[in-house]
């Protein structure tokens, strides 16, 4: 049984970081997936003209059955519209505005219910300009908060940045996003399948090179007894040391196996195949 929730990937990062380039790249390399793109500002429709088939109202129909829709400041309404699409999309890309905090958007999407789940937060940062932006008193904290929310950071323009800029940018990313996977990109070279289908593989906790790296430990909980999955998930999500958890357990309510996926404070509980073996892997900070 597959997860019925529609996966949504948030693409954030400051102006000029390459969000639009990435969205177009993913559209061109969707590998048969129907994508729905949500953008904050309709006017700056980021889709390349040759991908656009038709436009009506707030909705733009794209090649391959994809659509683009602007959400302004009414994200929940836009998500409702996305849900009504027929045929349904396979994946939603949400391009956040340059000053938006993707972590907050992720929390808001969590309110939408079980039908849409946050697949991951991808933050783009321009390797050439990142060090300068972190010295700009107006926007430094916005960018560091964006990085802090990342599951994956794509450091763009890695071919244009000088070795010094590249080194400083990597240090910044490791400092502000110590738990995120880092991908260096020159633009059109991001593996779309990794972003759309296997983002878990990019999330590689604990490999920080920064001075303030946090040691992480992995524990496996046997889950030999049935539990209330909701209460169990709440307990894990309330623990600030727990960063990720994934695995199966037997629900005390109906004795059926369920799958838990937890990233930070977000979690989802879905039906698991009957063959799923109980056990939850927990990655947490080690203070010892």
């Amino acid at each position, binding site marked *: 049984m597959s997860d019925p929730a529609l996966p949504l990937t948030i693409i954030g990062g400051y102006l000029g970081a390459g969000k639009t380039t990435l969205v177009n790249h993913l559209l061109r390399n969707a590998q048969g997936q129907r994508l729905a793109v949500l953008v904050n500002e309709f006017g700056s429709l980021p889709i390349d003209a040759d991908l656009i088939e038709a436009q009506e109202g707030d909705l733009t129909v794209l090649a391959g059955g994809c659509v683009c829709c602007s959400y302004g400041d009414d994200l929940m309404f836009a998500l409702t519209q996305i849900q009504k699409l027929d045929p349904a999309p396979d994946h939603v890309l949400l391009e956040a505005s340059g000053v938006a905090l993707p972590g907050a958007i992720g929390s808001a999407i969590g309110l939408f*219910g079980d039908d849409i789940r946050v697949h991951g937060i991808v933050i783009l940062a321009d390797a050439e300009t990142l060090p300068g932006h972190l010295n700009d008193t107006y926007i430094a904290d916005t960018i560091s908060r964006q990085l802090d929310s990342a599951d994956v950071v794509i450091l763009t323009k890695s071919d244009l940045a000088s070795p010094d800029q590249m080194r400083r940018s990597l240090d910044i990313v490791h400092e502000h996003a110590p738990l995120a996977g880092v991908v260096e990109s020159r633009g059109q070279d991001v593996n779309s399948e990794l972003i759309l289908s296997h983002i878990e593989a990019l999330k590689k906790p604990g490999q920080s090179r920064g001075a303030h790296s946090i040691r992480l430990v992995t524990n496996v909980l046997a889950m030999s007894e049935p539990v209330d999955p909701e209460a169990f998930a709440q307990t894990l999500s309330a623990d600030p040391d727990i960063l990720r958890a994934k695995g199966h357990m037997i629900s005390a309510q109906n004795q059926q196996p369920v799958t838990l996926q937890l990233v930070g404070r977000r979690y989802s509980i879905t039906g698991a195949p009957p063959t799923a073996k109980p056990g939850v892997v927990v990655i947490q900070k080690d203070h010892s």
Partner: protein
Amino acid sequence: MITIFSARKILTMNPRRPVVRHVAIRDGVILGAGDLEELRGWGQHRIDDRFADKVLMPGLVEGHCHLQEGALWSHTYVGFFDRMSPEGEMQAGCKTVDEMLAKLAAAEARLDSPDAPLPGWSLDPIYFDNQKITRHQLDAISSTRPIGVMHASGHIMNVNSKALELAGLMRTGINHEGVPLGNDGLPTGELRGPDVMSPVSIHVGFDRDMLSCDEHGMWRFGRLCVRAGVTTATDLAARLPEDAVETLRHVTGNDRYPARIVPLRFHHGVSPEDLIAHVEALAPQSTDKLRLGRIKIVVDGSIQGFTARLRAPGYYNGAPNGLWYIAPEQLAYILEHALRKGIQVHTHTNGDEATQLVLDTMRRVLRKAPARDHRFTLQHCQLADTAQFRQIKELGLCVNLFANHHHYWGDQHYELTVGPERAERMNAAGTAVREGVPFAVHSDAPITPLGPLFTAWCAMNRRTASGRILGEAEKITLDQALRAITLGAAYTLHLDKELGSIETGKRADFAVLEDDPEEMGVERLNETRVWGTVLGGKVFGTCDV
């Protein structure tokens, strides 16, 4: 036909003839203000004595409010303070939580359809010792219809279980700092911030676009203007899609509509390039009573919501810095291109860091696109310090200060958000006078009630709701305050050449008062009774609307 109005007193705001008894008008325009004998020289006329015992002022100008105030009166008012409805009914404030619940219950009893929503507005728990309202209290009013009560700040809402259920939020596992949970793991019904309010607010009877206004709401807004002596009012954050512009043109085009509306196109949800293009296309659709072609940019959030951008030393309670609602590069693009095209921009900045960003950006773009007399206006500009006011002056900007906010929430700023010293400097009208910065004062209705005479009283007295005098040095005089709500506000809209004073050649817009503001004085200006208005020579009495 020439009409000469006689009055007990006419305060013209024209220093050459500050006080007269007569004003002559023709075709909606003032021919002159002065002695009857002088005015007879204009030719055949009729004398209109209906204001013989009234006091006339220039029609008041509200430089920062929202038409939404008209729409909200369709919902149940549950604010702490007494507030006049558009129909002239003084609604008593709810002084306790129980009074608030009783008023909602009474409104519920009047609803016919069993599933019709029950929206309320202007709840302010700081006056109830910050007691938390829960969904259970609202469930006691109705468990079958959705109920939602918007707070006065506009940033928080309380809803019942039915509303949560309709929005899919009546469940455990919600993990959002804006949705506090009870011991049962379910939401308490308090929703903090627009992210979490918007999915629920549509189910409880609020419009999806909170700042929008329909035709019915516009008429109610017009009635409020007449009651407040206002003849020109802004709609400061309008999206202005085609159908909204059509409604605005249709309603203001009606002879009986009693207000001139100045809507500013809100920057949100549209690219900077399209924003400029949209406003350029709107400007030629203006009429006398509908002035289009201006831009509003929201730069940061609110101080009480801790979303305003503050410079060091930051929030008094240690809250992290607030949010940008536009990227600095986009702000610069809009300011530069608006300057080049002669489009006026008003910027919402609450925190002093947001104000500084606008100042730094203006300094830079003015070198690229030199412009004189642009009168770009900093709206709210609540926390600006004296050095910033000097920069505002040098850069040719204006400010519109939120004097009412100081009255209603000054205590909260003193105790919680920015601390005593900065709370005293908030909404620094005295500094604006000393530094020669053109300024107005505003209500931000519906956040606080529309009423420039009350707003002027707030700016003169700086008395908070608890009675504290907050910032003695920032008080202004009666003359300065009356100017701020007439010529001052008109200046910030580039409309002072036709509005804001009673003198030859200007629009025949008057506030008609029962009391003389000069007799009411600094202490009692807020008690001045308004008879009605004259807009373009047409008389609107509160008794007729």
